[in-house]
């Protein structure tokens, strides 16, 4: 027989097989000393529970960040005798058998699971009803003195006051966030910070909350939630998407009008100001229960993937199919959460198309917002690389790439291959970003906001962006290239965005205009090789230095360029002269109707 203490532990942890349970039962009945030992150990088991939940949750080491590094604690190895270890090894030898038995026990049908849940729910109702009736009897009976009733009620109050769960405790972590703004300072401000149970009001942005049991919630502002426990969140207003893994089955999203009990699915819940509420199931099955209490519900509907359950302001439930439009709209929901660069600076291969380098564990696609926001990761010594392997269906793609957003300096290097983004921001919102282009082809397909270098310094530190163009091709297919910009209404005391383009080779073609120093930002173009071609040119605050290479503008821009040269906004090195030539026939090989600016040899 296995050591009874091992069996008792397995019994407490609810992982005892039927055979082991029978052994333990036999041992308890064998002699009174055994029952006494069981009583002591089970008392210790219950005390552990009561003590742990009474402690200040802040003292708990559940979260790694708060783990104590105290070495003076109980040393398990020295506290366990050789005999204990032998007994444990005996148990471990039997473990495979136990696991098989456990699997057998787990093979119960979904109908049986449902039936048991219903039975449990009815049992809870019955007990509550019993307490309610008892109170009524105590209040109304002519035979029971009023004083006894008062004693009873006060006594029950005392019992109810005994803490059964901690007032507040940590149950989840903020794992992703974009444009984050909470209504309370109590809510986590940064990724990696933890959520206590209680109310959280999301005023702006989208967040991903990962519960310790693995359930994930994507919450979109404006929303008000109350995290009630590890397994339940109440959505008072707003919209959330819930992804529940097998380990977190039974996760509950309650709302003022209904509750959703999850059976391992992906589903979305939305609560409107009017009190109307709907749930959409994308995968698996949920139980949609009328009434805010998931245990004491009035009606329930089982919803499967592709269905929407709704409750209108009159409390009427309807169930229908999700339309194609609605499905597509929700499919983009997850994509609005940014994918952050996650690789460490000591990595040898910081390749863009390595899924391990991204926080979401997936390579960004054309719908993804990409952020490089850490300090010095990726670093100058170990930048994020887009190389020759990023080609065809492996090309680097993203909706928006932010190199150095409120962080940095961040380095990205393109040594070959292809990349296609809607927008590229290098050094944004007080961040510092540096991109180096050696070779390859980069296409930017967005509208006005296509390529911003050094933009919107809103804090004490200026946003600084640098593009070192040594080779390859960049095509801004629709919008502008803005070198140095700030927000239109920059608050007093804010820093300004500074953008620098150092061009030594390759070509940049901008369908829109080249804009230097937008809204008091400052831009510099140092042209010492290659060709840069733009649909137009505006210099509000900046400078163009031309020492080598060609600067080409669409149409006849001779007057504009000559004025800028006269104003010293377009310059060349000392003792050199800049030549401005309008090529209507295309004899210089850059096409017809172009103005070419270059240093005279």
């Amino acid at each position, binding site marked *: 027989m296995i050591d009874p*203490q091992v069996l008792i*532990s*397995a*019994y*407490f*942890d*609810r*992982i005892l097989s039927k055979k082991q*349970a029978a052994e333990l*039962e036999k041992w*308890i*009945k064998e002699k*009174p000393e055994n*029952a*006494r030992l069981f009583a*002591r*150990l*089970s*008392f*210790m*088991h*219950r*005390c552990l*529970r*009561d*003590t*742990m939940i009474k402690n200040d*949750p802040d003292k708990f*080491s*559940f979260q790694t960040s708060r*783990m104590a*590094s105290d*070495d003076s604690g*109980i040393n*398990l190895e020295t*506290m*366990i005798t050789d005999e204990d270890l032998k007994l*444990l090894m005996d148990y*471990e030898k039997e473990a495979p058998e136990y*696991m098989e038995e456990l699997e057998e026990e787990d093979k119960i049908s979904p109908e049986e699971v449902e039936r*048991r849940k219903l039975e449990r729910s009815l*049992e809870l109702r019955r*007990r509550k009803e*019993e*307490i309610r009736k008892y109170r009524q009897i105590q209040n109304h009976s002519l035979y029971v003195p009023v004083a*006894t009733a*008062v*004693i*009873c009620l*006060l*006594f029950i109050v005392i*019992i109810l006051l*005994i803490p*059964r769960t901690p007032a507040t*405790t940590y*149950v989840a972590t903020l794992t992703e966030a974009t444009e984050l703004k909470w209504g309370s300072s109590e809510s986590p401000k940064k990724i990696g910070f933890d959520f206590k149970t209680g109310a959280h009001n999301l005023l702006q942005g989208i967040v991903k909350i990962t519960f*310790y*049991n*693995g359930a994930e919630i994507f919450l979109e502002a404006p929303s008000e939630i109350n995290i009630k426990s590890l397994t339940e969140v109440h959505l008072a207003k707003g919209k959330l998407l819930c992804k529940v893994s097998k*380990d977190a089955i039974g996760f509950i999203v309650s709302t003022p009008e209904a509750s959703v009990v999850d059976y391992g699915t992906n589903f979305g819940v939305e609560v409107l100001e009017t009190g109307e509420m709907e749930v959409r199931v994308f995968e698996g099955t949920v139980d949609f229960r009328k009434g805010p209490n998931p245990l004491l519900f009035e009606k329930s509907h089982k919803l499967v993937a592709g269905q929407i359950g709704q409750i209108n302001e009159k409390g009427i439930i309807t169930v229908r199919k999700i339309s194609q439009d609605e499905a597509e709209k929700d499919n983009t929901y997850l994509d609005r959460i940014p994918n952050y660069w996650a690789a460490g600076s000591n990595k040898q291969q910081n390749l863009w198309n390595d899924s391990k380098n991204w926080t979401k564990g997936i390579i960004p696609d054309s719908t993804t917002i990409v952020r490089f926001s850490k300090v010095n990761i990726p670093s100058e010594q170990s930048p994020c690389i887009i190389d020759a392997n990023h080609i065809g269906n492996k090309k680097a793609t993203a909706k928006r790439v932010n190199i150095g957003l409120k962080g940095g300096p961040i380095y990205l290097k393109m040594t070959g291959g292809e990349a296609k983004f809607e927008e590229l921001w290098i050094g944004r919102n007080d961040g510092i970003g540096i991109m180096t282009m050696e070779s390859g082809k980069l296409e930017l397909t967005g509208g006005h906001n296509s390529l911003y270098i050094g933009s919107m310094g809103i804090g004490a530190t200026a946003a600084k962006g640098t593009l070192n163009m040594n080779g390859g091709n960049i095509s801004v297919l629709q919008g502008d290239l803005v070198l140095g910009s700030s927000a239109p209404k920059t608050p007093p005391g804010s820093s300004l965005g500074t953008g620098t383009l150092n061009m030594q080779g390759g070509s940049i073609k901008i369908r829109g205009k080249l804009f230097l120093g937008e809204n008091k930002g400052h831009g510099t173009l140092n042209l010492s090789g290659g060709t840069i071609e733009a649909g137009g040119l505006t210099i509000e605050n900046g400078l163009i230095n031309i020492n080598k290479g060609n600067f080409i503008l669409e149409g006849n821009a001779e007057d504009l360029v000559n004025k800028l040269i006269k104003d010293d906004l377009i310059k060349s090195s000392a003792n050199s002269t800049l030549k401005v030539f309008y090529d209507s026939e295309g004899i210089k090989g850059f096409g017809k109707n172009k103005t070419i600016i270059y240093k005279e040899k």
Partner: protein
Amino acid sequence: MDEQSEKKMEELTVYWMKAQPAVAAFITSVVRNFQQADDILQLVAVEIVKKFDQYDKSRPFIPWAIGIAKYKILSDLSKTRAGKLIFDTEAVEEIAGGYESEYEIFDDIRKALDYCIQKLKNKSRQIIEMRYCYDLKPSKIASYMGMTVNSVFVTLHRTRLALRKCIEQQLGAKGELL
């Protein structure tokens, strides 16, 4: 409330405050689920109020309260499938007997445990918190910690053994049986 009732309430409250940890532990030892045990504890408390007039004050209160809890579990809970017990009636009777014999040392065990918990180190403390604070099963702890169910179980068991030995040291000769 008259003076006699007030006195009665005070008396009952004092008795219950002392007995509650032992009764809660006994119920938990038989039903295992903490939430379910707390629900039953409330029903037992109601029952104790009802029957307090029948309590013989010349006898200790805790065994009497455990007797009521035992009756409540065996008569009510075991009738439903949801509340099906692992042990048969005889074993539950034996466990109740064990509690009735041992209750006098429980207060000392609790105090010693308060001290010993503080000495738990990182991993064992983390797993104990997950198990007891959040009532997570070993399979869920295993998935959260990236461990196997077996290694979580072994860590839990080793931690309980370590706590037991620490309590023994604290109690000295009083804790001989442990």
